[in-house]
């Protein structure tokens, strides 16, 4: 009896060992199929047709959590933000970027999301500039110079997509330091490193380079794709940036897009300055001039630099002949919502919703009837549905309730005091 029991126990132990061995043979992406079984989340309705998975509730709770973390850092108060940013994006194209744990490969995923990031960045920061750097074969090369045109950067990135060799963090930091050293003092210097490798092959002491970057007031942030590394963490802590590691493609996209809005500015990082800018008028219809960017004759549809009268094709840009920064007032206006942010709405509990004296329980802005309690604005006390709440805070930046009220100076001073 004892022998047979022992044999059974041994047999079970062996089975467990076998399972562990099998799991070790599988990659992480294979384990998501065996362990998580995404097909079981599908539902069928009465007639047997597949129902779409209801992402709304998940999406709303994600949004709520994000807002709470933002408001924890008091986003509503007027923190100074660095609006004129000079950002170097460093893409690690070493051998590790060819790994296939992100489909189809880490490199392809990075390229796709960096394109979306560049467009979003210029949408939110029209006066800023981006430069691209790649790390390949242990050397860092500058792919594009610091510039304000998204198309040029995206085209350059899509052409040069091949991975090889080792990754060198120190070379990248040296190159970025030299590039960002030349920019005017009012700009905020930032570096965003997309690091896939788990090691770095450096020619010298990387700690010295990190100190050099810290002294030059570079804010370095890293998004890792494999695992957390001490040297990246140290770099971000020293320079005041953020270090995150992406879990999957969706998470990577989220982390990347978090760097698009301007970060809070540390007062000693940039010197406030008055920048001379020109606001060009549109050229008259039918006027013919040689444009300064393409060096060819063009008809109508351009802008004329107010200082040297050269023709430029698009704004914002720097006049090639006199160096004046040319912008239009909407470009400046795009950044105003960072300076005057709206406060997050408060969530309404189910009980408050029942007790509220609002006659028809509809969302104030879209007039959809509120089936689940939504959110209310703290200033105008109007109710909004959760989808409008998300839209208002992420895209519109205006509370319709507050905008539909006229506040007289007397009332305004009463609320202030």
């Amino acid at each position, binding site marked *: 009896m004892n022998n047979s029991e022992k044999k059974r126990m041994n047999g079970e132990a062996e089975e467990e060992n076998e399972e562990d061995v099998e799991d070790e043979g599988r990659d992480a992406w294979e384990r998501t199929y065996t362990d998580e079984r995404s097909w079981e989340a599908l539902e069928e309705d009465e007639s047997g047709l597949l129902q779409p998975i209801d992402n709304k509730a998940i999406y709303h709770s994600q949004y709520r959590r994000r807002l709470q973390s933002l408001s924890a850092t008091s986003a509503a108060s007027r923190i100074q933000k660095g609006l*004129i940013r000079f950002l170097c994006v460093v893409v690690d194209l070493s051998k590790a970027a060819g790994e296939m744990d992100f489909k189809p490969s880490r490199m392809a995923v990075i390229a796709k999301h960096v394109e979306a990031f560049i467009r979003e960045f210029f949408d939110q920061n029209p006066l800023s500039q981006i430069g691209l750097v790649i790390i390949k074969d242990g050397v860092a090369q500058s792919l594009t110079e610091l510039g304000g045109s998204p198309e040029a950067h995206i085209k350059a990135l899509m052409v040069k997509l091949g991975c090889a060799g080792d990754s060198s963090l120190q070379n990248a930091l040296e190159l970025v330091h030299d590039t960002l050293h030349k920019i005017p003092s009012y700009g905020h210097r930032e570096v965003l490193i997309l690091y896939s490798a788990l090691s770095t092959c450096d020619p010298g002491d990387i700690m010295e380079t990190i100190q050099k970057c810290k002294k030059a007031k570079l804010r370095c942030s890293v998004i890792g794709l494999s695992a957390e590394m001490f040297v990246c963490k140290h770099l971000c802590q020293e320079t005041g940036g953020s270090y995150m590691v992406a879990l999957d493609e969706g998470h990577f996209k989220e982390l990347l897009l978090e760097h698009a809005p301007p970060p809070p500015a540390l007062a000693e990082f940039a010197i406030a300055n008055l920048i001379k800018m020109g606001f060009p008028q549109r050229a008259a219809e039918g006027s013919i001039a040689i444009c300064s960017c393409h060096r060819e004759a063009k008809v109508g549809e351009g802008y004329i630099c107010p200082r040297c009268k050269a023709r430029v094709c698009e704004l914002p840009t720097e006049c090639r002949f006199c160096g004046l920064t040319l912008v239009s007032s909407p470009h400046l206006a795009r950044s105003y919502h960072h300076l005057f942010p709206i406060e997050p709405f408060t969530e309404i509990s189910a009980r408050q919703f029942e007790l509220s004296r609002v006659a028809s329980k509809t969302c104030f802005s879209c007039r959809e009837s509120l089936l689940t309690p939504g959110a209310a604005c703290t200033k105008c006390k109007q109710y909004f549905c959760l989808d409008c709440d998300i839209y208002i805070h992420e895209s519109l930046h205006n509370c319709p309730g507050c905008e539909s009220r006229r506040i007289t100076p007397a009332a305004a001073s009463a609320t202030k005091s």
Partner: protein
Amino acid sequence: MATLPSKPIADDVSLLVVLIDTNPFFWSTSSSSLNFHQFVSHVLVFLDLIVRLSQLNQIVVIATGHNTCDYIYDSSLDTDQVTGEGELPALYSFVLQRLEEFVDKDEKLGAKQEGLSEKRASSLLSGSLSMALCYIQRVFRSGPLHPQPRILCLQGSPDGSEQYVSIMNAIFSAQRSMVPIDCCYVGSHNSAFLQQASYITGGVYVKPQHLEGLYQYLATVFAVDLHSRSFLQLPRPAGVDFRASCFCHKTTIDMGYVCSVCLSIFCKHHDKCSTCGSVFGKAQLDAASDRKRKASES
């Protein structure tokens, strides 16, 4: 979250959100040949035209008042509409009744305030634009097939400079969602905000020269759906002024100085920014410690 709209039903089905300006300060002082009643009658016939052009067309009317904004009419709702009084169709009577209620409400809200000091009283355009955009987002969420939305502003009141930031926010959001903002401006001088709105979002801006024929402008320019606009020769903007105005004198300038911290625009070089208080040329910490030292010395 999808910022790009999903597929529309058919090429020529539109959702038209009309923002009607009911600002009493404008309509009472308007010296043009159009008074409010005539204006509303032109607009009602135009709304009827849109509804008749296609069974699937939808209209939403939002009124822009002086003290508040509100929804007047939504063609997709099965309301127990007021039956036609006499010769007037049901649509007209319903809209007229709701407009009257709205104007009364607007007036009551204004009665609590003291008299206006400024002569140029603007309407709350930013509020109605925001509501229109939220409604359009709701339509985008409603399913894979929806009509093509656009916004038509029938505005007469002058621009309120305090609304600049909110209107620009609404314009950029409309640009991202690809919703054109058209404008038919019935006031006296051109509205710079609405010209910029139409230019940035790809809409049409018209300031009719003969206001007695307002319906003709509306029917020929604004009744057309978005897809067919590519086949028509629509009025083009004759020079949108994108120059900025300086914060100190409010004059338009073509070369100026911009504060790198708060992006306020000045025409002359200053030592200190009047908006954010940053001292130029010095690092902020140095400036703050200078101020403290001076305060302790004095």
